[in-house]
């Protein structure tokens, strides 16, 4: 920032107690209320109220229309943990996170590093790497569904060329989760790449210049300058990728429908199935609350522990 003062700072500085009338004094309140009203109203109706209502529903049995009928306390939660299906969903979700998060971040970091070089035509490569940001989950899943196809799919064709037997990408329970993960990693890359590239470009060029004068090699600079300076961005991307993984739905719906034998029944898919296919709104809401808690805890943990390791400029 080269400018010494912004409007916001100046307003604060020059705010003096005055002898204005009540009507004048509350002018800011009235303006604020008016301008904030749309946001607050929408947040209340579509965020806060439903969050509370989800919690409420999770303690009730409901009818098929979703009206709460009987208060059952923690019955829905207990029921969930007794269900093999739900325990499986938890396990699958954790595995999915383990497959996708590190791979996504490492891939995006690698792409950002090579796209941060000052080379002719680098803009073209950046556009290519960012392109999955424009890919919708429906289109991505449909395209990968075709590539995973056991007989017409290009992946098995490619494996055949190098003499590897065909893989049942979506029908084998181990492979199905890996296939959904591959699709997800690919879809995540565009966004993470773009943010990481932005982070790299914010690093002061002088640091590298002096390192080069000292004769530091590429990997030394990477370890000693790039990664530490990039850590706030990396930290942000890891959190986002984590949360995104928890929220994956479309690729499961199109690629596997949760199968085979619930091998890809990720948590959101499980909530969707419970609520909108089986009309079990109580247990579905209990799952939604557990999802909320998981995301909350991860976010807070990342802030608590991530912050210490993170180098802020």
């Amino acid at each position, binding site marked *: 920032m080269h400018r010494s003062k*912004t*409007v*916001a700072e*100046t307003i*604060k500085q020059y705010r003096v107690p005055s002898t204005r009338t009540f009507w004048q004094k509350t002018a*800011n309140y009235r*303006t*604020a209320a008016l*301008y*904030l009203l*749309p*946001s607050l109203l*929408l947040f209340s*109706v*579509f*965020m806060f*109220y*439903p969050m509370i209502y*989800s919690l409420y*529903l999770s303690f009730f049995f409901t009818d098929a229309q*979703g009206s709460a009928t009987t208060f059952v306390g923690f019955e829905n939660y207990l029921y969930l943990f007794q269900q093999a299906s739900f325990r499986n969903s938890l396990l699958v979700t954790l595995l999915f996170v383990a497959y996708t998060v590190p791979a996504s971040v490492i891939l995006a970091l*690698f792409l950002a590093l*090579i796209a941060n070089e000052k*080379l002719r035509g680098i803009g073209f*490569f*950046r556009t*290519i*790497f*960012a*392109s*999955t*940001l*424009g*890919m*919708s*989950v*429906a289109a991505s899943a*449909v*395209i*990968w569904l*075709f*590539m995973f*196809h056991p007989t017409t*799919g290009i992946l098995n064709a490619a494996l055949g060329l190098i003499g590897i037997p065909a893989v049942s990408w979506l029908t084998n329970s181990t492979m199905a989760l890996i296939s959904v993960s591959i699709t997800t990693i690919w879809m995540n890359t565009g966004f993470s790449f*773009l*943010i990481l590239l*932005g982070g790299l470009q914010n690093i002061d060029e002088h640091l590298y210049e002096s390192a080069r004068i000292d004769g530091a090699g*590429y990997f030394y600079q990477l370890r000693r300058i790039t990664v530490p300076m990039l850590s706030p961005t990396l930290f*942000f991307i890891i959190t986002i990728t984590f949360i995104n993984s*928890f*929220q994956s*739905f479309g690729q499961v*719906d199109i690629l596997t429908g949760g199968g085979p034998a619930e091998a890809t029944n990720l948590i959101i898919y499980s*909530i969707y199935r419970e609520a*909108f296919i089986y009309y079990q709104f109580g247990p579905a809401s209990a799952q*939604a*609350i557990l*999802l*909320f808690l998981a*995301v909350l805890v991860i976010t807070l943990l990342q802030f608590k522990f991530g912050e210490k390791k993170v180098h802020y400029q």
Partner: protein
Amino acid sequence: MMRKSIMYTLLTLAAIVMFFPIFYAISVSFMSTSDIAERRVLPSAVTLENYRNVMTSVPILHYLRNSFVVASITTLGMLVVSALAAFIFAFVPFRGRQAVFLLFISTLLIPWEATMIPNFFTIQSLGWMNNYLAMTVPFFALAFGTFLLRQHFKTVPLELYEAAQVEGLSKFQFFYKVVVPYAKTSFVTLGIYGFLTTWNMYLWPLLVTTNDSVRTVQIGLRRLQADEVATNWGLVMAGAVLVILPTLLLLAVGQKQLQKGLTKGAIK
């Protein structure tokens, strides 16, 4: 020199791997059924048959139009609602502003999926099923958008503020005559981001539409895939290409802008 060629090799390899699915979908969309059966990578002869068929077999243009309407309305609403809130957080101090700001931040901790069941009931009771309102209004308020705009609003130079005071502009006039034009670029960033995410929405439109009247192209694509799978992959790929074309073009045009804007919003 050595380093340069290593970099170009890595870049090219990475580009091929990353772009292959998109390239392949485009390529297949121009193939005949026999080419697809032979698992070709490039069509032996380019045919527009798949595009002709996808237009006639499903109302894909209708779906595309719906998506345009939904994405445009949402983007516009998002810009207006976020800008109003951002203006307060940047320029209008009042006791308790910090608390309201915290309330905005708290929305970032709520995964949208955790609220979808009650939201679905709300939409039902409002009579918004199969209505554009269901797919647009709930997404107008956006904490991320508010923060992004606020960051930029705060950099409005003092001179502009003083000039506005001298001119005797009201708060609202200062907002739309000075602040909005000044922060044009961050509006563009948020606009691109809003359009991309809304265009690509999947789960919510799936829940709140039960017929083709306002159904978006993403759900149309899912239907197309379910109906046509195993019989006509060329047609499905033509559908997929039509779905991704608008957002890929938007991204190609606005990538630099988006990167700058998002980095600012995410890191600073």
